[in-house]
């Protein structure tokens, strides 16, 4: 097995009294798609910036391709394609110019970039928009262009910070499809997200972060198996009655979570559980049996829902 591309040991970042990232350990292997999952403020972006060699760590060890970002910042950044949380495309330039100049920042030759641009425009499905100023693009197009821009230098690692936040469902799916292709091409993906479905779609392995710490690590399926049941029953009794009913139903299932608007009951057989509850005389306003997701894992681990 080849040595990991990214190794973090006891990685820590503090700002005065506040600890943004708190002694975390993880490895990312070549070709992996690795996710950092957690709510806002969990320390995901801070971790990403430390890996991206644009933020210095307070303590701990961090190596990217065997190099220390503190000592070899520009050399590490040359390996990386960065897609920041907020698009920072060059609004004064066109689509093609954005790709071109970004390649020039890496010192790449004009000829190399010109060839690369065609490939990237096709990848980002922006061939029709090549001479349009980026301010005129939709949110989804801008994000695809930002990803394409990150690929100009043929990076070994593509880092995406909240890649689909703020996009409509259709734009998200197009983007997932593009990222999936990169994954197939063997590009190592490192992404943060607070969307469970995104993590399940894109990440082979992930760490769940909360308040700067790692709560759990594994593949999405492993995490669901380990921290949750196969299925979950969602019941709504109306906001006044939820608490009372949660109390009553406590012993019917493996685990129960009471949220402000609904109760979640965890079980490997949701349908049976639901029919038992119904025949027991409970009358929820709505009921739903679904497969458990990473959202439930997060709830179990922290007692809080992920998107507040």
């Amino acid at each position, binding site marked *: 097995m080849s040595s990991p591309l990214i190794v973090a040991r006891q990685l820590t970042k503090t700002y005065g009294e506040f600890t943004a990232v708190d002694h975390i350990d993880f490895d990312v292997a070549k070709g992996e798609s690795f996710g950092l999952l957690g709510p806002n403020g969990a320390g995901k972006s801070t971790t990403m910036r430390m890996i991206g060699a644009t933020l210095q760590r307070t303590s701990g060890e961090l190596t990217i391709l065997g190099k220390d970002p503190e000592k070899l910042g520009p050399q590490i950044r040359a390996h990386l394609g960065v897609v920041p949380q907020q698009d*920072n495309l060059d609004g004064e330039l066109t689509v093609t110019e954005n790709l071109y100049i970004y390649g*020039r920042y890496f010192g790449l030759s004009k000829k190399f970039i010109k060839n690369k641009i065609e490939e990237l425009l096709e990848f980002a499905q922006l061939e029709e928009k090549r001479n349009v100023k980026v301010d005129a693009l939709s949110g989804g197009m801008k994000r695809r262009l930002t990803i394409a821009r990150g690929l100009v230098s043929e990076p070994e690692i593509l880092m995406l910070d909240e890649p689909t936040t703020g996009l409509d469902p259709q734009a998200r799916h197009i983007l997932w499809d593009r990222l999936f292709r990169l994954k197939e091409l063997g590009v190592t993906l490192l992404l943060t997200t607070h969307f469970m479905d995104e993590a399940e779609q894109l990440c082979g392995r992930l760490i769940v972060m909360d308040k700067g710490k790692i709560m759990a690590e594994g593949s999405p399926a492993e995490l669901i198996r380990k921290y949750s049941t196969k299925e979950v029953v969602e019941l709504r009794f109306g906001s006044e009655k939820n608490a009372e009913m949660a109390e009553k139903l406590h012993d019917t299932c493996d685990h129960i979570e009471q949220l402000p608007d609904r109760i979640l009951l965890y079980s490997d057989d949701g349908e049976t559980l639901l029919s038992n509850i119904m025949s027991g005389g409970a009358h929820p306003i709505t009921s739903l049996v679904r497969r458990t997701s990473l959202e439930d894992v997060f709830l179990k681990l922290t007692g809080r829902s992920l998107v507040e």
Partner: protein
Amino acid sequence: MITKSAVAIAESRIGKPLEKYFAGRVNSPLERSWLAFKSSTWIIVLSGFLEPVLFLFSFGFGVGSLIGGMTSNGQTISYAAYIAPGLLATSAMNGAVYDSTWNVFWKINESKLYQSMLATSLGALDVALGEIAWALFRGLIYALGFMAVVTPLGLVTSWWGLLAIPAAVLIAFGFASFGMAITSYMKSYQQMNMINIFMLPMFLFSGSFFPISVYPQFIQWIIQALPLWHAISLVRGIMLGQVGIATLIHILYFVAMICLGLFFTTKRLTALFLR
């Protein structure tokens, strides 16, 4: 075709001086400025050049017709010829300050341009030098434009006047470098407006329109500490053929300004985007 990869390019810098801050690619931020400039609004570019020209016509020929001649170090010259060097220095300053203050502020805080540049293998000094060089270039263009107006009017009285162009470059470099350094520390639009509040009095009282000997001694000292006074004195000395030890002092003043500006800009960009 053998193409050097981004990694190979970055690794070739290892062991070179200032390797953490400088990738040897001042040309790429400059290229970016050129791409953006090609599609910018020309009328705005023109306005910075027109301002000193308008001052020349209104003060030089308007007020000048009431005053008659001026004496500078024993030489008697027209009032227009007296203020032309001051306005040339001001042109160079305007061009440089325009790009290195408000434009830089916008790029740091709104467009996040430097953030995206510094996520690549560029260093903070590449960005600082590239942006300053661009501002300097604008200062040079304004100065050349101003020379093109004043020379046919017979306001350049000595062959030394040709040296006013490199002097204008030095002045523009100094203001661009210092302007970008100050801007990089500014946090709000209110603070940025302080720059404007400072610039106008400096323009009016630094000896562009009359000798500073009209002021009491202590005010003269304050003015002599300001960069525009050095710029005006430098250009005036050169254009009137009065070159001496004072010229050297003015040059050194600007060299110091350039160095300080580059140092603090690089330091600040590193702190903002690479820490």
